[in-house]
């Protein structure tokens, strides 16, 4: 070809982009699907697609820093003799000892306690450190029942029956052998070093009728004192919420697909479930249809990052939110000061998600004692508490601007959407219009 002939610029495929090509090569080389931690990374309709309107002539704002704006929340008012009261509507999601180091679990307990909220065990049982450092501790009741025992059940402040999680609704779990230390193995009654599978279904109940009986048993064992949550992944939020209520839940937790996991297949994380934003209104609708909104509390999780996200979730009808990934970042996960070490692991700060491998330089998602001791539970706990307090202040700032004296008084009418998709999912008007997709025959 004549070198003077103009050439078109080389163009890469939008379908076969660089990430896709690298994944094909990785799969062809290893023969195994990609496993990672965290939640969906693809761009999804999210809280950023919503805006608060704030006060104007038709709405009367509250004075910032002077007029009170409440943030407390009471969970478990339906059946439990001892509902739990939290100072802030932001809780710490369930994350297991095993997937996280003992130091990280202690830090979560420290931070949550300073901030006046709860933390949650995970698929591996309750550690004494965790119980000792958590004023309010929610004990997860999972299909694997690793570490489950009646003493810890009674030591808990609330019980969360996990039916599913947003990163993998319908899926179980797998804690790879490299993270199975002596202590983790002992707590789970399995040999050290082998992969530990967590079942996707509970072993002794099937369906909502059985679940109702299971909840009855748990209440009997705990003298009807503990609030019982039911956690579902963001699959069919209307029906799952309705059935959780039917089963006798005190609290329903709905976890969207941005919610994190310790480890599962990339294809599962990115292609199963619904965005958090799409889950809230159907869940609230189910509660309203049953006359149980605010009687059975709703906790929303999956991609909550700041006080604006908190305020938006509450405005859409949630009673509280829960954070996992963001809490780990507050502790020190994916921090740029560890960039050199992330590079050695073939990644970069902000993208590290091989939490299942146990090589976390931040000492959080590891059972390696040398790495784990890098995390100071007191300092990390203080960082988490600071972060929780900032989020709360941010949510209060927005609520006051909308004229609300409690964050729970935020409502959908305070919101507009920036995109048609977000307007449809959140069922609020597209900004600058009165149009809510799907309403009024449009």
């Amino acid at each position, binding site marked *: 070809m004549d070198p003077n002939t103009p050439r078109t610029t080389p163009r890469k495929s939008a379908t076969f982009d660089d990430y896709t090509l690298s994944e094909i090569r990785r799969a062809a080389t*290893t*023969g*195994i699907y990609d496993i990672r931690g965290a939640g969906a990374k693809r761009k999804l309709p999210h809280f950023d697609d919503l805006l608060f309107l704030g006060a104007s002539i038709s709405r009367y704002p509250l004075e910032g820093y002077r007029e009170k704006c409440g943030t407390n929340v009471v969970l478990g008012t339906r059946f439990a003799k001892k509902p739990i009261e939290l100072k802030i509507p932001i809780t710490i999601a369930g994350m297991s000892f095993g997937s996280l180091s003992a130091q990280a679990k202690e830090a979560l307990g420290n931070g949550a306690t300073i901030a006046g909220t709860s933390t949650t065990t995970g698929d591996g049982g309750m550690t004494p450190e965790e119980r000792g450092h958590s004023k309010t501790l929610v004990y997860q009741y999972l299909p*694997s*029942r690793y570490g*489950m*025992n*009646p003493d810890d*059940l009674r030591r808990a402040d609330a019980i969360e029956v996990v039916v599913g999680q947003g990163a993998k609704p319908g899926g179980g779990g*797998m804690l*790879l*052998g490299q993270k199975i230390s002596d202590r983790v193995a002992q707590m*789970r*009654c*399995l*040999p050290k*070093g*082998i*992969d530990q*599978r967590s*079942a996707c279904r509970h*072993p*002794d*109940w099937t369906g909502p009728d*059985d679940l109702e*009986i*299971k909840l*009855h*048993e748990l209440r*009997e*064992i*705990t*003298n*009807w004192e503990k609030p019982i949550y039911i956690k579902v992944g963001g699959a069919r939020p209307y029906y799952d919420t309705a059935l959780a209520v039917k089963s006798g839940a005190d609290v329903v937790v709905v976890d969207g697909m941005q919610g994190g996991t310790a480890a599962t297949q990339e294809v599962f994380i990115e292609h199963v479930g619904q965005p958090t934003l799409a889950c809230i209104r159907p869940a609230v609708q189910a509660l309203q249809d049953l006359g149980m909104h605010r009687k059975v509390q709703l906790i929303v999780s999956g991609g909550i990052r700041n006080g604006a996200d908190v305020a938006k979730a509450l405005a859409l009808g949630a009673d509280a939110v829960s954070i996992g990934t963001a809490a780990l970042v507050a502790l020190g996960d994916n921090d740029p000061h560890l960039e050199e070490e992330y590079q050695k692991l073939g990644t970069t700060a902000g993208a590290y998600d091989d939490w299942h491998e146990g090589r976390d330089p931040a000492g959080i998602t590891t059972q390696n004692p040398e790495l784990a001791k890098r995390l100071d539970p007191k300092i990390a706990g203080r960082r988490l508490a600071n972060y929780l307090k900032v989020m709360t202040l941010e949510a209060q700032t927005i609520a006051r601007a909308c004229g609300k004296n409690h964050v729970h008084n935020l409502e959908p009418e305070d919101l507009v959407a920036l995109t048609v998709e977000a307007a449809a999912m959140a069922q609020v008007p597209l900004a600058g219009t009165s149009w809510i997709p799907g309403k009024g025959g449009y």
Partner: protein
Amino acid sequence: MAPRNALARKSNEQHMIEIDLEKEGVRGVNSRLHTLPKDTNERHWLIRNPMGQHAIACGLDAPITVEVGGHAGFYCGGMNKQAEILIHGHAGPGVAENMMSGIVRVDGNASQSAGATGNGGLLVIKGDAASRCGISMKGIDIVVGGSVGHMSAFMAQRGHLVVCGDAGEALGDSIYEARLYVRGKVDSLGADCIEKKMTDHHLAKLARLLDKAEIKANPKDFRRFGSARKLYNFNIDHADAY
């Protein structure tokens, strides 16, 4: 199964304390059993009129004997610690689920998921057990006088399951370190479950279990099954086993 009048006679002989579940309800019965002081002299109880109710005598944590005078529903003896629970009838799903210690004996048959996730203690089912008997068991010993249904000992981690009759399909699927003994036929074995050699050590252990369960059977008539341990660490070339 002990007839009602036999239970009454026994009640008088052993000074059992009788509770009428029909009058006191499950909450009333469990509340009384849960609040017994550690050094109680009230060590033998009879629950009359269980009526197949759920969660009877669950969460006990005392060295007492509790007799259930009839059929029980779901989760009877669930999460039991220390107590001896005798069910003079059939038991619903999840009998003795997640038991920690003690003994639960079922005179009749048990429904699905008997002894699920149990950590310790002994569960004896004189009749048959339905599907998923011993699912995810973590150290419990289960002795079944009759047969067990499909998917029994699924993901069984630790402990022993003794089946004096037959076992249904996919016995011991994805089993870890639990040991299974079956006297009758096995419809099929699940993933990673294989027959293993019965040594003198195993025969002696099985004899002790049968003796403790008060079931007469010759250990030499049983076969032993356990994990091939090929699925303990993921290998893509074993993917067709899942």
